[in-house]
């Protein structure tokens, strides 16, 4: 059995395939997988040579064999996979003469497409593509699935899940790194390893991209983080070109020499990739000579990751941003109800800018489909921030849905000592991977003593072990109680914190601000308790990173405890500041205002955000908000719009003014709400970039301007199918839809959308815009209006609603 040998004895993969097939006549761009059927003898020959050279694991020639790549092939995928497995087995019968146990690995490469949100391939669509080929592979008799040359953690997650959920085969994964140790999609070694170990792959490693020499530092880094056997499959050097041909020039001897160093680093499975030949593999196996391997030691680091970043919870504490949570936040609740995803994303970005390392995500509200909303928010957040996320929910369905589509190894909030909770949560951690927050409460409630809480932590850690979940993936929360109602509780929490650290050596987490509930001037208590908790071993505080008090505690603690080298961070934050505490971000904005007395109109016309904020706030002391809007705001916007039309104001200026106006509007809206005034019911407009189109900057420009003119924009995003747009128009009874397309190929989707809208919502007007469009084109596809620039769509919208209202 392969899984019993992995990591216990040295095993050899085969070497390159593409280069050998090219020398046998395969053209660049031709699908090599078809050769399994058309040139079976050549393939058997290559495989046989690798077996003869000593390979234990030989890959099928199925690197690109997936439904997505094979849309233009006349051969069926099943047929190809069957033949590919058959070719390896046949070669084994011919080439293995020493009776050693060998394995046919189903080779699975990337789809060649970029996954959403950067590309247009959905996560589940990628999963389906992998599932199909993997099922065929198992049916055909493959012994393992080897997923390789992956440069995207998200795609590899889809592939591993497809393998695990649809086959019983061992799964090994190697990824392609560049010389800086990064994936093409930005991930680094620890983030990749954290995710793959979480997904419970049998071995992991690196292949392709570079030669063995360049790979050494990456192998070294992998050994530092990996607890599972490491695979190393380099190219025969870096690719070079001569007469238009790509070639690799590391000789078999040189290859073998460097692979010896790779073995010394601790690799357990070795082989070759592009440009390596049976000669390279023979030299390598002769050099290695089945020497004993040292299985990788289990690593103790607690790591959470996103696609691009790993956060290691170690002695230096980290900050978990608490703001994406509706509890006690009226505006946030409203945003959730109105499906205002942008609002949530901005909360994320603000926290990142304020210094958060991880973002807690809680979108739970009664009467909300939490699973689907959680998935949406996680996906969208991961398209604007590379911070790892903490999935915070009590709804197990939502938890699983989010863990499935999360790109990386998430933090999970939470499990507790109740049997029911552990039975539900641990299987998910076991399957998808994750670092889980363990609350020290159980069927008996929250223990009133530190010892009681420490004991429950032990129970949870013990139970997790039964699922194969290591201690490093548990972060204990000993619970913060409110001191105003439970005097003495702070001391218990601090003692428990120290207790779990000492007894189990696990990382800890606390929701800090609970401590001050019901007390005046809460930040004072919060910040001091935070410092005390840090001093007692808190690894991760769930706090508001925009709170200056909390951040002062954090930065001071790190500087004092020598976690901040040369106090660099501290100096960066506080150089030039005096000792007084600013009263929040808005006040800070006001303090910086440059030219006092600058009128609101001028501020907007010049696109000065801070001045616009200040001027609006000043004016609102003496004038009614609606008056201010009509007297200053709208005329300023009109003037800028006119200038844009005349060609005296340009797009960046138009947008700077729009952003300034937006800030002024927000000030006035706050004033209105405080006075209890009704904000006007606004006219709804749908905006969408049509299906197949992933460029949304034009649509976003139009959105900002329409919002300036008080329209209620329903932004459906990019790559939006016609049915979604039509359904939304019907449901929300929308009377104007704006569609954007960049290229000729996507104008077709625009036409489809218009046709569907005419049928489903005949009273709805449609305006179109985008680089490729003109009046003639717009007429041809049946649009009501062509907007040659963003201002035109504003004028058209005003015209439509003036008529209708």
């Amino acid at each position: 059995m392969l899984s019993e040998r992995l990591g216990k004895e040295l095993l050899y993969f085969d070497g390159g395939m593409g280069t050998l097939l090219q020398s046998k006549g395969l053209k660049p761009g031709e699908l090599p997988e078809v050769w399994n059927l058309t040139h079976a003898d050549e393939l058997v020959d290559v495989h046989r040579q690798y077996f003869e050279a000593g390979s234990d694991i030989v890959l099928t020639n199925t690197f690109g064999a997936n439904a997505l790549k094979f849309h233009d092939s006349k051969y069926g995928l099943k047929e190809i996979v069957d033949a590919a497995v058959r070719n390896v087995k046949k070669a084994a019968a011919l080439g293995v003469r020493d009776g050693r146990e060998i394995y046919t690995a189903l080779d699975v490469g990337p789809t060649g497409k970029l996954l959403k949100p950067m590309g247009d391939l959905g996560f589940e669509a990628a999963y389906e593509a992998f599932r199909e080929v993997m099922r065929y592979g198992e049916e055909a008799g493959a012994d393992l699935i080897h997923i390789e040359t992956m440069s995207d953690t998200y795609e590899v997650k889809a592939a591993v899940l497809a393998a695990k959920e649809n086959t019983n085969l061992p799964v090994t994964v190697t990824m392609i790194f560049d010389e800086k140790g990064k994936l093409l999609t930005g991930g680094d070694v620890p983030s990749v390893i954290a995710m793959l170990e979480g997904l419970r792959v049998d071995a992991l490693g690196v292949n392709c991209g570079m030669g063995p020499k360049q790979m050494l530092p990456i192998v070294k880094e992998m050994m530092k983080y990996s607890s599972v056997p490491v695979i190393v499959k380099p190219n025969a050097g870096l690719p070079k070109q001569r007469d238009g041909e790509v070639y690799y020039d590391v000789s078999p001897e040189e290859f073998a020499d460097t692979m010896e160093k790779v073995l010394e680093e601790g690799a357990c499975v070795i082989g070759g990739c592009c440009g390596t030949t049976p000669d390279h593999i023979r030299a390598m196996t002769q050099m290695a000579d089945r020497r004993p391997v040292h299985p990788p030691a289990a690593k103790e680091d607690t790591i959470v990751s996103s696609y691009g970043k790993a956060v290691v919870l170690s002695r230096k504490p980290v900050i978990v941003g608490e703001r994406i949570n509706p509890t006690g936040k009226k505006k946030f609740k409203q945003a959730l109800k109105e499906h205002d995803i942008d609002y949530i994303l901005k909360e994320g970005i603000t926290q990142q800018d304020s210094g958060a390392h991880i973002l807690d995500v809680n979108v739970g509200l009664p009467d909300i489909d939490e699973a689907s909303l959680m998935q949406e928010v996680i996906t969208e957040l991961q398209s604007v921030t590379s911070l790892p996320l903490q999935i915070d929910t009590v709804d197990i369905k939502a938890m699983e849905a989010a863990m499935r589509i999360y790109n990386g190894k998430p933090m999970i909030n939470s499990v507790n000592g109740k049997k029911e909770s552990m039975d539900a949560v641990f299987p998910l951690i076991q399957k998808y991977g994750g670092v889980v927050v363990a609350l020290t409460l159980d069927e008996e409630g929250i223990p009133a003593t530190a010892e009681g809480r420490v004991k429950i932590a032990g129970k949870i850690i013990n139970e997790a072990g039964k699922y194969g979940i290591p201690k490093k993936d548990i972060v204990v929360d000993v619970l913060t109680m409110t001191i105003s109602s439970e005097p003495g509780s702070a001391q218990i929490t601090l003692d428990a914190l120290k207790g779990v650290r000492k007894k189990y050596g696990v990382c800890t987490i606390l929701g800090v601000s609970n401590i001050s509930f019901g007390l005046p001037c809460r930040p004072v208590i919060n910040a001091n308790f935070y410092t005390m908790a840090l001093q007692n071993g808190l690894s991760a505080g769930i706090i508001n990173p925009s709170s200056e008090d909390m951040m002062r505690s954090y930065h001071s603690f790190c500087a004092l405890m020598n976690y901040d080298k040369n106090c660099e961070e501290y100096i960066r934050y506080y150089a030039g500041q005096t000792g007084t505490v600013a009263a929040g971000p808005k006040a800070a904005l006001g303090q910086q205002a440059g030219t006092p007395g600058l009128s609101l109109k001028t501020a907007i016309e010049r696109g000065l955000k801070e001045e616009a904020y200040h001027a609006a706030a000043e004016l609102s002391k003496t004038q009614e908000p609606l008056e201010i809007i009509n007297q200053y705001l709208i005329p300023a916007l009109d003037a800028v719009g006119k200038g844009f039309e005349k060609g005296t104001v340009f797009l960046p200026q138009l947008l700077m003014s729009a952003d300034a106006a937006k800030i002024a509007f927000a000030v006035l809206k706050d004033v209105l709400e405080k006075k209890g005034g009704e904000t006007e019911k606004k006219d709804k407009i749908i905006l969408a970039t049509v299906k197949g189109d992933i460029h949304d900057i034009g649509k976003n420009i139009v959105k900002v301007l329409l919002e300036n003119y008080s329209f209620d924009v329903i932004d459906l995003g990019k790559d939006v199918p016609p049915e979604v747009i039509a359904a939304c128009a019907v449901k929300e009874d929308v009377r104007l839809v704006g569609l954007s397309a960049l290229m000729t190929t996507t104008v077709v989707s625009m036409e489809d959308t218009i046709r569907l809208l005419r049928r489903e919502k005949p009273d709805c007007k449609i305006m179109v815009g985008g680089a490729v469009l003109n009046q003639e084109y717009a007429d041809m596809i049946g649009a009501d209006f062509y907007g040659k620039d963003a201002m035109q769509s504003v004028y058209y919208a005003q015209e439509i609603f003036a008529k209708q209202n």
Partner: protein
Amino acid sequence: MDRRTKEAVRYLGYGNHAVDDGTLALIGDSFDELDQTAGRRIVYRIFDVLFQSGGCMEIGGFPVTSKDLGKNLRGCESVVVLGATLGPETDLLMRRYSLTDMAKTVVLQACGAAMLEEYLDEQQEEIRQEAAKQGLYVRPRFSPGYGDLSIRYQEMILRMLDAPKRIGLSMTDGNMLTPTKSVTALMGLSRQNIACHIRGCEACNKTDCMFRRS
């Protein structure tokens, strides 16, 4: 004003108008940020070209039909096929700003385009010097979407270059390159030094374009 700043200003639609200080500051910030975050990756290979009749040709064995490309490549014996990208980091940066600062977003967009062109110019210069050693001259870059060269050739180009694997450059079902700040192009190699200094913009027959280089 350096070349890439000038180009960014042009992409922002200023034409011959003077650029305002606010925008100029945004351009400076955007280039700084891009210099820090953007990836710059390129892959290229050289293929033989065979001309047939009626704008048809074969590049590396792949059939291509385009009269305009045919004109551009006239007299060439081979073609440099290339793909380049600023990577997903750049897309992420623009998405992030599109939530909070649209002015910055459009400026980043323009600066990204200018940066990509500058990068391609540098790479092209290296290719030119290499080619010169073999007595070959390099023609201006020609990309799918120029003239009558269909953007459907993106798929062929990406496949010829193994671009998804080599530089993480792929495309959507609608033939759009992903990451978005990416380019594919063809550059002819010929023995004759034909004066052909037309660069992208001037080769286009949309003469009323507001972004046209004057």
